[in-house]
């Protein structure tokens, strides 16, 4: 009796986390794309008649914090281009939130092996950010 109670409780926990993660992914995509779309309209209103030149790659070497500062300032000043960029950053954050949610889910289930595995994934992502500083 006691045991079955615990099991249904755990099952409920896992199931509701699946629903939360599912919703997060869905709304994350729609919100970020709406932002990018609005940015696109603003961008086209100002630059629609400019001539594009995407055939030559201009390499940047900005670290992620410089980029984010530029994006925030750009959005405040109403730049369509940076509003698109902001939407894209929101899109990139969706999987990050998903990883954090799974971390909580494993913590609640007391599955410490998977808490560690999830932390390793987070560590790798943080390491990838640091490559922006090294060169």
């Amino acid at each position, binding site marked *: 009796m006691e045991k079955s109670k615990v099991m249904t409780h755990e099952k409920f926990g896992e199931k509701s986390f699946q629903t939360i993660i599912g919703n997060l992914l869905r709304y994350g995509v729609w919100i970020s794309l709406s932002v990018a779309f609005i940015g696109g309209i603003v961008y086209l209103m100002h630059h629609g008649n400019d001539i594009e030149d995407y055939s030559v790659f201009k390499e940047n070497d900005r670290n992620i914090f410089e980029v984010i500062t530029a994006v925030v300032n750009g959005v405040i000043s109403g730049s369509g281009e940076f509003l*698109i960029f902001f939407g894209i950053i929101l899109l990139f954050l969706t999987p990050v939130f998903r990883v954090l949610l799974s971390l909580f889910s494993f913590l609640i289930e007391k599955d410490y*092996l998977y808490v560690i595995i999830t932390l390793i994934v987070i560590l790798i992502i943080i390491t990838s950010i640091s490559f922006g500083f090294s060169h």
Partner: protein
Amino acid sequence: MTILTFTLIMLLGAFLAGFIGSLSGLGGGIIIIPLLTIILDVDIHYAIGAALVSVIATSSGSAAAYVKEGITNMRLGIFLEIATTIGAVCGALLSTIAPTSFIAVLFGLTLIFSAINSLRKKEEHIVLESSPLAKNLKLQGTYPTHDGQVVSYGTKNVIGGFSMMGIAGMMSGLLGIGSGAFKVIAMDNIMRIPFKVSTTTSNFMMGVTAMASSVIYIQKGYIEPGICMPVVIGVLFGAMAGAKILVRTNPKKLRIFFACLIFVLAVNMVYNGINGKI
């Protein structure tokens, strides 16, 4: 070309890429890159950046439904993400130093491989007994079928699958694609996971894998808003339209047609890459 014309052409092209990608099972990202580089003369780095953004959008969008239905094996996904994220970071760093022609040739070859792989007959295989390592990692699972039954499955050859996932992640970081073909090899052929679970789990993992390389892409300037906006919106809606048709028809003949089309694009990429035209 003005930016407005370019955006409208991109939007249409990306819609077609998402549509074909969804029907052929190859994914929209892998088709948008030749479209941008060969037809619209966009630099391959921008094409890779835009493809990666569309990969995150389509994979998160479709993963949402599968996670809710309980088909996705989240433990398996998160465990294998260790391999794909390490691979993706290495791949993205490699793409910043590799010559453009090398990337073009490698991309063409990957495209050929994926097209052939999409035509291969898929057999369902379920192992019941997991290997000891798989048991320790709790990688076995269950999934619901359409008629309400629950199927249990086991997993084997964890190390082999993990290594193949590292390669899948590297290709993803290097080329901005979801590298579904490599992931399916790792999960279906090596780890013996049922087809339904492996495709949905691969989809679930793509967002985080792409995220690991996207940070490097942003810092290096691969993400060009003017290209990404029409691409990501077009690919997403194209993929949704394709998924609707997939439910109703069995697109075997379409698959062969698209595989041939993709093959021609791929040969074109390899040729241009070798001649230094990309």
